[in-house]
């Protein structure tokens, strides 16, 4: 039985979408972030990084969004959420890696600046460049990465779940998603998918 550890309004939404799109049988556990449950002893014993998402499988734990989503796609081949072709799979992983190591990191400087500095003045100052950085990233996504109608072109894949999740953060980062018409259109179409709606409901946004 798959068990996904999540928290509302975090990137674990992407994995929830992937599981719903795959028609997977899984249990969703919501951690209480305001209470710091992710840093408590019980959760750290499962995931010493104290983060979500984490996917518990009968073989052990998998963390990191791109690894979890690729695994879900791989063990649910009928859902065709990731291609077998090495080049196409590498394109998906390249896109997902850009989201996790560049875009999400920029976003994190808004509220999680304390990761990189203990100085309150620095932590506060790190918020300033977030809108510009997010704008630059989404300009690249809009012009160079989003093939259309889906990230990879004609085929819907796990990359779409991840783009939708991060695009949902733009408003909170003071960036108007309407500046990126193709990303905005993708966001709206994602919101119409039954699996995405189920995921949003279960995940809590």
């Amino acid at each position: 039985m798959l068990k996904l550890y999540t928290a509302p309004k975090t990137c674990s939404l992407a994995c929830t979408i992937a599981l719903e799109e795959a028609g997977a049988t899984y249990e969703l556990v919501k951690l209480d972030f305001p209470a710091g449950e992710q840093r408590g002893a019980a959760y750290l014993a499962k995931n010493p990084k104290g983060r979500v998402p984490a996917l518990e499988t009968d073989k052990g734990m998998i963390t990191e969004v791109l690894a979890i989503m690729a695994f879900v796609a791989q063990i649910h081949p009928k859902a065709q959420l990731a291609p077998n072709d090495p080049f196409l799979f590498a394109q998906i992983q390249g896109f997902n890696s850009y989201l996790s190591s560049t875009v999400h990191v920029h976003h994190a400087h808004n509220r999680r600046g304390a990761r990189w500095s203990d100085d309150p003045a620095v932590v506060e100052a790190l918020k300033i460049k977030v809108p510009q950085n997010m704008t630059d990233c989404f300009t690249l996504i809009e012009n160079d990465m989003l093939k259309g109608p889906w990230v990879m072109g004609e085929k819907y894949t796990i990359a779409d779940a991840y783009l939708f999740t991060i695009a949902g953060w733009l408003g909170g980062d003071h960036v108007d998603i309407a500046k990126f018409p193709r990303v905005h259109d993708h966001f709206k179409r994602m919101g119409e998918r039954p699996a995405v709606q189920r995921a949003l409901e279960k995940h809590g946004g």
Partner: protein
Amino acid sequence: MLNLFIGGISSCALASHIALEEAAADYTVTRLDFKAGQQKSPEYLKVNPKARVPALVTDHGTITETPAVLFYIGQMFPKANLLPQRPFDFARMQDFNSYLCSTVHPNHAHGFRGARWSDDPIVIEGLKNKVARNVHENFALIQDTYLKGPWVMGEQFTIADIYLYTIATWLEHDSVDVNTLPKIKDHRERVGARPAVQKVRATYV
């Protein structure tokens, strides 16, 4: 014929370069002069609009982001046996590579690429203060929870070892005493002693 765009020896593109050599691939490298800002030249932006390395040019197109490039090399050269075969093991390896890419490398980058996240020189300087502690914490976690031994995935040498080695070569630069991380030090020495790694390193001199 594969062509890999690289930077200097302290760029993360070293991992992809080593992987190509370990895979006994037919390949060429094009080295960009970062001091001269060559990665931002119009010619290179056509190759990779993100202005970063690595970028692997293949017959089908270009792959970017280290985890994706490493995967592709592993998949295209199966005789080199650089990827785990079972889905869970493959997911654990991707989990590890994603952690290096989106947590460890950004922590390192706050040391001298702080300008990505702030235009304020005082903030940029302040971002250097937590690098050593963050990187040490990351490597302690790798040592305690990820590195099965003798290789990351246990008995099989994989692209994860090449990537860990690459980032571990930055430890001294990040003011981390590698003697406090004995398993990391040992892993780094063993990977460094491999003929393919030595051959690649010699090309940077």
